[in-house]
C-alpha cells in the first residue's frame, strides 16, 4: 500500500430534491486520471473524514456557507492502495452541446467549444486535454463567481468571458504539435475564415482577433516536450488573455480602448504613467485605503512602501521590473505553474508583449488565490496557505525563500483593486 497526499478537484453537485446548495453532494475528481465519483453529502460545518471511498481517504474541512463565497472547503485526498487505471471520461462528440460534464442538474453550461466539436474532427483534444480545459474553465469560473457573487461559476464565467460576444463562446482549437505554423479552422456554420498563426510546439496562444471567436490554440503533440508542463495553469493563463481582451472599453486612452483595462493597468506599472481608468484624479481612486498604502496605479510596493518595489520602475535607473517576488511559483528562468510566461525564458519580448504576458500571469495568480484565500487576507501568513500569489522570492533565479515583506499579498491586493475597477467599469 502506498499513500500520497494531494489536492484534487472537489465540488458540490446541487441536490435537486432539496434545491439548496447546502445539501449538495461532494464530488471528487482528478480529470483524466481518476474517475469522477459522488462521495457523500456535504457536512454542514466542521471537519469530516470519509474513509469508505474506493481510492481515497478524504478529509474535508467544511467552511461555513456564505452567499458571498459559496463553498471553499479544504479537501485533502490520501490515495490508498494501488493507483487505479485511468478511466476515460466521455469524449466530446460532434453533437453541438454546451455540456462538458453531463449532470442532471439545471446548472447552465460553460460557453466553450472544442475544435473536435462542430465537425472539426481532424483536430482532436485528448481525454486528458479536455480534462485540463474543463478544470481550468471551472477554476476561472469559481474565481469569477466569488468576485461577482453569482449563483454558479458557469454564470460568472459566461457573464465575464462570453456574453454578448459573437459567437458567444470561447473556442479551444487543438493543433497537432508537429509545426509552429498553425491554421485555425472554424466550424463551417460560423462562416469564419481560416486564420493562420504561429504557435510554438508545446505552447498555447490566444487569438483575440476582431471578427473571429476568441480562440485558445494549443499546439500540443504527443512526444515529450510537445505539451505544456502545467497544462491547466497554461489554459488559465490563456483565459487571462481572453479576459484582457474582454476588458476593452470605449476610452480616449488607446490601451484601454484597444488592448483592454487589464493591459492598461499593467502598463501603468510599465511606463509609470496611469491611464484614466486607474488614475486617482479623474476617477475615484481604486487604490485608496490599501493595506500596502504606497502601491498605486504606477507601482506595486511591499511592506517597505516606496523602498520595497514588487513591480514597477526602479527609481534610480528608470527601468521596469516585472519582479521575482510574490508570484505563486518561480524562479522566472523556467516554466512553473504560476509563471507561464517567465521573463528570463522570453528575454527578447517587445514591451507590449511583456505587458500583455505579465497581465495574463497576474490574472492566473489572482484566479487561484481568489479561490483559495477568500475573503482576502493580507500580511498574515508567510509564504501562505493558498494557491497563487505567494509571499516568496526567487531572486536572480535562486531557490525560493520566504519573504516577510509580503510581496505576494501586495500583488494580490493590487490585482483585487484592479479587478474591482474592471468589473465596475464593465458592468459585469
Amino acid at each position, binding site marked *: 500500500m502506498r499513500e500520497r497526499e494531494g489536492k484534487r478537484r472537489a465540488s458540490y453537485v446541487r441536490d435537486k430534491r432539496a434545491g439548496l446548495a447546502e445539501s449538495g453532494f461532494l464530488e471528487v475528481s482528478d480529470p483524466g486520471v481518476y474517475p469522477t465519483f459522488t462521495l457523500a453529502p456535504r457536512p454542514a460545518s466542521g471537519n469530516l473524514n470519509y474513509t469508505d471511498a474506493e481510492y481515497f481517504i478524504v478529509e474535508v474541512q467544511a467552511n461555513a456557507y456564505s452567499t458571498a463565497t459559496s463553498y471553499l472547503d479544504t479537501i485533502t485526498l490520501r490515495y490508498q492502495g494501488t493507483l487505479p487505471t485511468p478511466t476515460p471520461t466521455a469524449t466530446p462528440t460532434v453533437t453541438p452541446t454546451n455540456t462538458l460534464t453531463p449532470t442532471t442538474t439545471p446548472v447552465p453550461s460553460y460557453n466553450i467549444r472544442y475544435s473536435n466539436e462542430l465537425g472539426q474532427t481532424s483536430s482532436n483534444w485528448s481525454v486528458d486535454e479536455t480534462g485540463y480545459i474543463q478544470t481550468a474553465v471551472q477554476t476561472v469560473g469559481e474565481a469569477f463567481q466569488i468576485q461577482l457573487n453569482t449563483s454558479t461559476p458557469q454564470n460568472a464565467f459566461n457573464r465575464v468571458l462570453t456574453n454578448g460576444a459573437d459567437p458567444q463562446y470561447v473556442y479551444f482549437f487543438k493543433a497537432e504539435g508537429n509545426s509552429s505554423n498553425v491554421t485555425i479552422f472554424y466550424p463551417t456554420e460560423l462562416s469564419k475564415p481560416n486564420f493562420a498563426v504561429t504557435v510554438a510546439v508545446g505552447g498555447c496562444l490566444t487569438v483575440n482577433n476582431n471578427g473571429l471567436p476568441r480562440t485558445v490554440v494549443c499546439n500540443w503533440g504527443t512526444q515529450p516536450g510537445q505539451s505544456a508542463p502545467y497544462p491547466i495553469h497554461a489554459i488559465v493563463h490563456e483565459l487571462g488573455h481572453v479576459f484582457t481582451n474582454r476588458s476593452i472599453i470605449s476610452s480616449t486612452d*488607446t490601451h484601454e480602448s484597444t488592448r483592454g483595462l487589464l493591459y492598461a493597468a499593467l*502598463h501603468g506599472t*510599465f*511606463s*509609470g*504613467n*496611469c491611464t*484614466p481608468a486607474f*488614475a*486617482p*484624479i*479623474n476617477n475615484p481612486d481604486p487604490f485608496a485605503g490599501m493595506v500596502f*498604502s*504606497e502601491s498605486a*496605479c*504606477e*507601482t506595486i510596493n*511591499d511592506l*517597505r*512602501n*516606496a*523602498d*520595497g*518595489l514588487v513591480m*514597477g*520602475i*526602479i*527609481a*534610480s*535607473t*528608470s*527601468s*521596469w*521590473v*516585472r*519582479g*521575482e*517576488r510574490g508570484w505563486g511559483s518561480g524562479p522566472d528562468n523556467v516554466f512553473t505553474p504560476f509563471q507561464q510566461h517567465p*521573463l*528570463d525564458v522570453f*528575454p527578447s519580448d*517587445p*514591451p*507590449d508583449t511583456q*505587458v500583455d504576458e505579465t497581465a495574463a500571469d497576474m490574472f492566473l495568480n489572482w484566479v487561484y488565490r481568489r479561490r483559495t484565500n477568500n475573503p482576502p487576507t493580507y500580511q498574515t501568513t508567510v509564504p501562505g496557505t493558498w494557491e497563487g500569489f505567494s509571499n516568496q522570492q526567487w*531572486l*536572480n533565479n535562486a531557490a525560493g525563500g520566504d519573504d516577510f*515583506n509580503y510581496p505576494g499579498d501586495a500583488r494580490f491586493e493590487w490585482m483585487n483593486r484592479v479587478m474591482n475597477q474592471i468589473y465596475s467599469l464593465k458592468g459585469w
Partner: protein
Amino acid sequence: MVNKRMLRSVLFTLLLCVLLVGTGQAQNSQQVIRNLPPMAVLDVQYSPDGRYIARVYAQGRLEVLEAASNRTVLEDTVALPHPLQRAKVDWSPTGDQLAAGIGAQIYIWDVGTTQLLETINAGGSEPLVYFEDGSFIPEGFVSLQWNSTGLLLMAKSMSSRFTIWSKDQLVFIVDQVTGNNPVPIVWLADDRHISNGTSVFDIQDPTSRFIPRQGQPLEGVLNNCGPYSSIATNANRTLIVQATIYDCIVITDAFTGDEIGGYQISEILSLYENDLELIEHMNPIWDVSWSPDESVIIAVDSQGAVRVVDIATGSVTLIAQQSGPLYAVDWADTNTAIAYGGSTLGEDTVFATVSVAEVDRLMMSAARQPEFAITPAADR
C-alpha cells in the same frame, strides 16, 4: 516636427544604449552590468562660499577645483572594479569638509589641508547590486547629505543601505537596509526627519521606518509625470523638489507632503500611439537644484538639456544643450554661477559652468511656456 521626432528617436536610441547597455559588460551570459562611461561626471557641488567646486566621476575619481581659476586643489581616485552609475559629494555647512560617496565608501576630506579624515563603509558588501530586472549595478550612493549643523551625515546606497553617521561619536546612529529600490532621500529642516518625498523617517522613532504621508496630490502630475528620478530641498529644507522620468518638476511641502507646484517642461504624453513611442518620451531628469532665492529651479536630463523653471510663472528656459546625458547640476549658494556635468555620447566628460548673469539674460530672452504649470499659491 518630423526632424525633431527623428532627432529625439536617435537621441533616445543612443540614450538607451548608454542607460540600458551602455558600457555595460556582460560578465557572462547571465549578468548584465549597468554603469556609465568612466569619464562621466556623476555629481557636482559648489562649496558654501562658492570658492571651490567638487566633482566626482564614474571611474571613482574625486576632484576639487578652485572655481575662479579651475586649478585642482584636491584629487583622489578610488580603485573600483566597475565604473559607477551613481556617486555623490556634499560639502559640510561650514565648507571645511567634503564628503564623497564613491563605491561602497564615504570619504571625508579636510579640503584646507587636503587630508583624508575618515573612511566610512556605508555601502553593501558586494561590489555589484542585483536588481529584479536581471541587471547588476555597481554599488554607489544615490544620496549623501550633511544635516544643517554638519554633525550628522546621511547616506543611502544603491543597495538601499540607509545610514546616518555621527561625526561626534564616529558611529552610525542609523544603519539599516530599507528595501530593494534606492529612492533618493533628503534631510528636512528640523534635522530630525528625512524624506523621500512620499514617506518620512524620524530618527527618534524606535520603529525605524519610513512612514507614508497622505499629502494632497496635484491634478495633472500623476497622469503625466511618472516616477521620481531625483530630489533636492530648498535652502532651509522646508520645500522638496522632485523631478520625474517624464520631464516633470514637482514641488512638495516638506512637512505636509502636499504637492504645491508642478511643471512639465517638455512634450506631454497624451498623444502617444504605442509603447515604444511612449518610452521615447521618457526623459529622466537626473538632478535638480534650487536657486538661493528659491525663485528658480534648474534641471539636467538624460537628453543633455540644462533648463531653468521660473517657479512663479512656470516659464522654462533652455540654458544649454549637450549631446549626451547629464547627471549633475548645482546652483552656487552665492548665487554667482551654476555648474553641471555628464558625458558626451562619445563617453567623454561634459562639465561646464554658467554665470547666473548669463542665466538671467537667457531667461529674459528665451523663456517659453511649459506643457503645463501649476504654480504655488502666492499666499502660502
